């Protein structure tokens, strides 16, 4: 489409995630699966919204990819979405699906998060493409996110391979103008044929497929040599830049006059094409975010690339960082004045997790944590979460700690409801089976809160809004062999404290389910507590629960006095429950017990 003002008005303004969904929809995808994870979470809901596609939140990324493997073998085009660390969970099927290949095209979205805006690490998933021998495309804006997704389905079927698409946070969560088309009706491919030599990876069959994979990679290198998914943009040849994805946009911003080799296909690479480009330019840089993946590949081709400082291997690039890498111009100083109070993310006012962490702090527990909003329990003033490794790890860390320190060690595992279904269940089985003693607290807020409130098996509703069978955590815990299973309301702090004290003291394994809906999902608010300034001793107990609706104001008294931001307060009354002198209490006329 020509790019006039009129054409632009007819395009759609789409985020990278919406554009991926649109591309998959246009490509006739029939099956979408994934597990929520920033920055990938919006893709499947957008695909579901477009219609005509079966979409599901699977229990975890491994399940999502394996279900898609089945749908692909059955002939359907499939989209599987996850964040970068989700690929670790899905890596087991991934490496062997590279051997089996596909029937219906299968595209895996690995949404990477340089700078760790919402992640526990910034692993560079281009390594997965090379390690599993699966081709990988990298879009640099929303239009390419749509176009490359469509192309990825074609390549998948043409080359009999899963295909990775790797957007990063700045692609997923950036909006741009996108020209879209209609959905192509792509029928199920072939009959449901039994092909054990292709889909049963016993050694005898796998060895044959391994040879096929080598041929496939050679054919993909041939494609990389000629295909327009990679493109040269020749300008001033005194500076040549090989780049891809978001890094391309920063380099183009910083050096609009330079010559570019922009790679859409980042694995495998064509040495011929790269050498040809290198020969045409005087100085050659590779501009890439995170690891020197392209740099090392290109150096191994015998092409000389200028060195950049190792500090640029950490975090997102920006136009100014690219200028610094190439021209040595220091980036402008944009740091804020040092005396400004930071504003980190916090547990919301009324968050049910707050009472659990307030109590675990009081009980001096060593808390092995997990991935979710509740990880914020580690920050001051709560400081009541002491490990966070990966999805489901906290339960197993607690088990390991208590095997070496004994049940007297005040160790408690805290895990969210969605995370528990994702990868906590196996840990609970392990504790019961191996005569563990740990206390596992499931902070069950009936949603996947951190990623935007997605449903999960415990909720009993599916992505498409259909009723699903709800996973019964209490029955599950008993079924795996944990006998001490309790359900408490975290807004009732006395009952929650009693359950924690008793289970921590017990030499038996236990599960405490602290169940209360995420405050972001609850519409009605209850009135803020009454505050009696004359009773208040300014002890600070209420302030130390870290509620954003409370602040300590210096009014000239001996210590600051608490103030309530009634616009933020949800009336959970946790502050009233920790107040030792009843200066904060349920407002007049409110029901006793705050139920």
């Amino acid at each position: 489409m020509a790019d006039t003002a009129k054409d632009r008005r007819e395009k759609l303004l789409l985020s990278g995630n919406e554009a991926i969904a649109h591309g998959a929809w246009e490509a006739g995808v029939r099956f979408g699966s994934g597990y929520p994870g920033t920055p990938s979470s919006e893709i499947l809901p957008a695909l579901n919204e477009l219609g005509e596609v079966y979409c599901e939140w699977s229990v975890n990324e491994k399940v999502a990819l394996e279900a898609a493997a089945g749908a692909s073998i059955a002939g359907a085009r499939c989209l599987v979405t996850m964040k970068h660390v989700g690929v670790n969970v899905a890596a087991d099927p991934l490496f062997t699906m590279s051997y089996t290949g596909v029937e219906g095209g299968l595209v895996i979205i690995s949404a990477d998060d340089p700078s760790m805006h919402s992640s526990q690490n910034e692993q560079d998933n281009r390594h997965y493409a090379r390690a599993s021998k699966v081709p990988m495309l990298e879009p640099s804006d929303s239009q390419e996110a749509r176009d490359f997704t469509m192309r990825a389905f074609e390549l998948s079927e043409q080359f009999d391979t899963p295909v990775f698409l790797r957007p990063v946070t700045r692609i997923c969560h950036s909006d741009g103008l996108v020209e879209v088309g209609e959905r192509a009706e792509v029928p199920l491919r072939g009959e449901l044929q039994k092909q054990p030599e292709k889909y049963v990876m016993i050694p005898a069959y796998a060895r044959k497929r391994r040879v096929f994979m080598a041929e496939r990679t050679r054919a993909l290198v041939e494609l990389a040599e000629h295909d327009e998914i990679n493109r040269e943009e020749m300008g001033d040849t005194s500076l040549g830049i090989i780049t891809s994805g978001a890094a391309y946009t920063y380099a183009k911003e910083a050096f609009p006059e330079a010559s570019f080799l922009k790679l859409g296909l980042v694995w495998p690479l064509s040495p011929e094409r790269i050498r040809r480009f290198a020969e045409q330019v005087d100085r050659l840089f590779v501009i890439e975010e995170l690891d020197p993946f392209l740099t090392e590949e290109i150096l191994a081709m015998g092409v000389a690339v200028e060195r950049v400082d190792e500090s640029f291997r950490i975090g997102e690039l920006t136009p100014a960082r690219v200028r610094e890498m190439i021209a040595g111009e220091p980036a402008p100083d944009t740091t804020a004045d040092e005396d400004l109070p930071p504003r980190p993310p916090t547990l919301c006012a009324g968050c049910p997790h707050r009472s659990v962490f307030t109590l675990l702090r009081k009980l001096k527990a060593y808390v092995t944590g997990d991935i979710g909003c509740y990880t914020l329990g580690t920050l001051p003033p709560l400081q009541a979460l002491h490990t966070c490794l990966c999805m489901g790890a906290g339960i197993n860390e607690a088990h390991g700690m208590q095997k070496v320190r004994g049940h007297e060690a005040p160790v408690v595992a805290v895990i969210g409801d969605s995370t528990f279904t994702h990868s906590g269940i196996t840990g609970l089985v392990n504790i019961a089976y191996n005569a563990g003693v740990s206390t596992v607290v499931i902070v069950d807020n009936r949603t996947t809160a951190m990623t935007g409130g997605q449903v999960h098996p415990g909720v009993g509703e599916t992505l498409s809004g259909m009723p699903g069978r709800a996973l019964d955590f209490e029955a599950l815990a008993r079924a795996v062999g944990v006998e001490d299973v309790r359900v408490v309301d975290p807004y009732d702090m006395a009952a929650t404290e009693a359950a924690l004290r008793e289970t921590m003291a017990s030499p038996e394994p236990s599960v405490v389910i602290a169940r209360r809906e995420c405050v972001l999902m609850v519409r009605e608010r209850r009135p803020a507590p009454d505050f009696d300034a004359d009773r208040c001793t300014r002890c600070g107990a209420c302030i130390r629960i870290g509620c954003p609706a409370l602040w300590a104001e210096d009014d000239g008294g001996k210590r600051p006095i608490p103030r309530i931001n009634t616009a933020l307060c949800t009336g959970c009354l946790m502050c009233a429950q920790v107040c030792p002198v009843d200066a904060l209490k349920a407002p007049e006329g409110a029901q006793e017990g705050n139920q």
Partner: protein
Amino acid sequence: MVRNVLLTGVGGQGIITASTVLAQACRLAGWQVKKSEVHGMSQRGGSVNSYVRFSADEQIASPLIPEGEAEMMLAFEPLEGLRQIRQATPDAVVLVEERRIVPVTVNMPGVTYPDDVIERLVASGRRVTVVPASATAVELGESRAANMVMLGALATQIELADEIWSEAAALVLKPRALEVNLRAFEAGRQLVPAGV
């Protein structure tokens, strides 16, 4: 020419909604536009930044505004405006909501919310206008429309027809909230004198 707007504030203030209305308005004008922000953990009451870049004639490469090149800044909270001020050009137009949102970190010893945030913004040499967005929205009976008051204030700096703004708002906002939001937008426009 590519023009750069930085919208900054606190998670939950409707910043991303406002930046989406702006980006849709640019599209409807037939301009190039890119917008970028971060979702997820940072939205839990933390600092939020949204970048909008647009141009009537040029392609836009980076979704991020190059460091120090925001020529317009819409600060939904004074402290967040001050935190980002060095992202703005030396003569940038800075429109800043007067209402403070005190971060929970001030409850820790030695951490205070500075008294002179607006003064420091002015002293930075940028063209600062204080916008009573929340107060205006409350007067209109919808405190959540403060983001549209801010966007209306920004509209004084961008050459777009009235009907483009209202069409963009209609694309982004819920129908039942549209009317009051458009009134908030208009009120915001009246708060900023022409030619700041």
